[in-house]
């Protein structure tokens, strides 16, 4: 009995079917608790007023935007090394969720930036890195949809994901070199003394867990859909041959 047995499509469908409602339910719970707490039961910031509350959408979305790409990278590696079809399909399923998270982070950031920085957009390294991440997602998804043969598509997108990851990191540091930042540094970390105050911090962690669970639920759901689509295609092919 090894972990890899769960990568069998049949087994995957079997174990995800009961797990999925629980994941989705706890995502909904965390998000509603975190967002309601964050929006209605935290004080306004003394300088930013209530605009500070956009943090409960912005930070978790940005977190998941990066982690979605990371998950695609791991899934691509598993596909290239062990050739588990579920892995390739999970990477495919994660891309649209990741690009949506990137867009949410960019849009909420722009809405917050307008009153606080006085501009919707600034060519700041962090903002620029996210825009480039968005372009990488776009290219990745375009390559998936352009290739008909599923195995070829999985192989080529996995290679692109690997190379893209290197260049995404390169672009991030190149952008830092290229322009001075306007975006504040990390204010939520485990190893620093100065963090954001507790009243804002606690609901934020709950929304971050909520976004993580939401991502997991969406990816599981989309992977299940992809597997079913694969099966339908196989059934059609069999029916045509018969």
């Amino acid at each position, binding site marked *: 009995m090894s972990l890899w047995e769960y990568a069998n499509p049949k087994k995957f469908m079997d174990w995800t079917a009961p797990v999925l409602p629980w994941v989705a339910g706890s995502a909904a719970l965390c998000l509603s608790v975190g967002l309601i707490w964050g929006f209605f039961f935290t004080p306004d910031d003394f300088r930013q007023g209530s605009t500070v509350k956009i943090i409960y959408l912005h930070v978790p979305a940005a977190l998941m935007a990066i982690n979605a790409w990371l998950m695609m990278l791991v899934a691509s590696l598993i596909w290239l090394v062990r050739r588990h079809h579920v892995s390739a399909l999970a990477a495919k399923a994660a891309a649209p969720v990741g690009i949506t998270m990137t867009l949410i982070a960019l849009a909420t950031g722009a809405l917050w930036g307008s009153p606080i920085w006085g501009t919707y957009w600034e060519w700041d390294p962090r903002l620029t890195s996210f825009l480039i991440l968005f372009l990488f997602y776009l290219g990745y998804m375009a*390559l998936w949809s352009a290739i008909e043969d599923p195995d070829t598509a999985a192989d*080529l997108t996995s290679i692109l994901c690997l*190379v893209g990851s290197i260049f995404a990191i390169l672009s991030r540091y190149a952008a830092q070199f290229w322009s001075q930042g306007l975006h504040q540094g990390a204010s939520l970390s485990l190893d620093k003394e100065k963090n954001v105050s507790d009243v804002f911090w606690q609901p934020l962690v709950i929304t971050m867990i909520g976004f993580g669970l939401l991502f997991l639920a969406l990816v599981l759901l989309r992977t299940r859909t992809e597997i079913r689509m694969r099966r339908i295609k196989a059934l059609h092919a069999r029916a045509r041959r018969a």
Partner: protein
Amino acid sequence: MKALLLRDLRLAIRAGGGFGLGLAFFLIVVVLVPFGVGPNADLLSIIAPGILWVAALLAALLSLDRIFALDFEDGSLGLLATSPLPLESVSVIKALAHWITTGLPLCFAAPVLGFLLHLSPDAYAYLILSLLIGTPGLSMIGTFGAALTVGLRRGGLLLSLLVLPLYVPTLIMGADAVRRGADGMAATTPLMLLGVITLGSIAVLPFATAAALRVNLR
């Protein structure tokens, strides 16, 4: 290897237009910019480094889909794959041929166009140097993109979508080196980082390119 390089160069020159097309495109893009932003010399000299680099990038992009497409269609790519030469070397040679036919002429044409854009006199050395260092990287990255899309019927547009984000670090470092040169600052750091990107691409991407080619030839 030498034979393959010579063959690719001959094909590029004799196939008509391949050699000069990128150069002409570079010229036209640069000439169009003043029409777009107005003939103000101060403004042009400020944006010249960026314009020259962006135009060089687009010109390099233009001829990418030719790298593998013709060989793929007539089956010579399959022959190359079964030849004793590893596909990794083939991809390096293809990138080199692309650089000689596109990147190298750009390096020498760029100063003339810099003159048109009122580029600061201090920046010419850095412009040529940064293009010489950066364009081999552009060719290698582009070869990787071409290998990914070689099996597609209409891969051209997709190719640009895939390759342009990969060009971002090169563009940042290249244009920054020229800008620093124009402002009279030391440009060694961006030039060295540009070299890092190019050498890193040449070290890593042939393997990714060959892997993509093998998938497409399956």
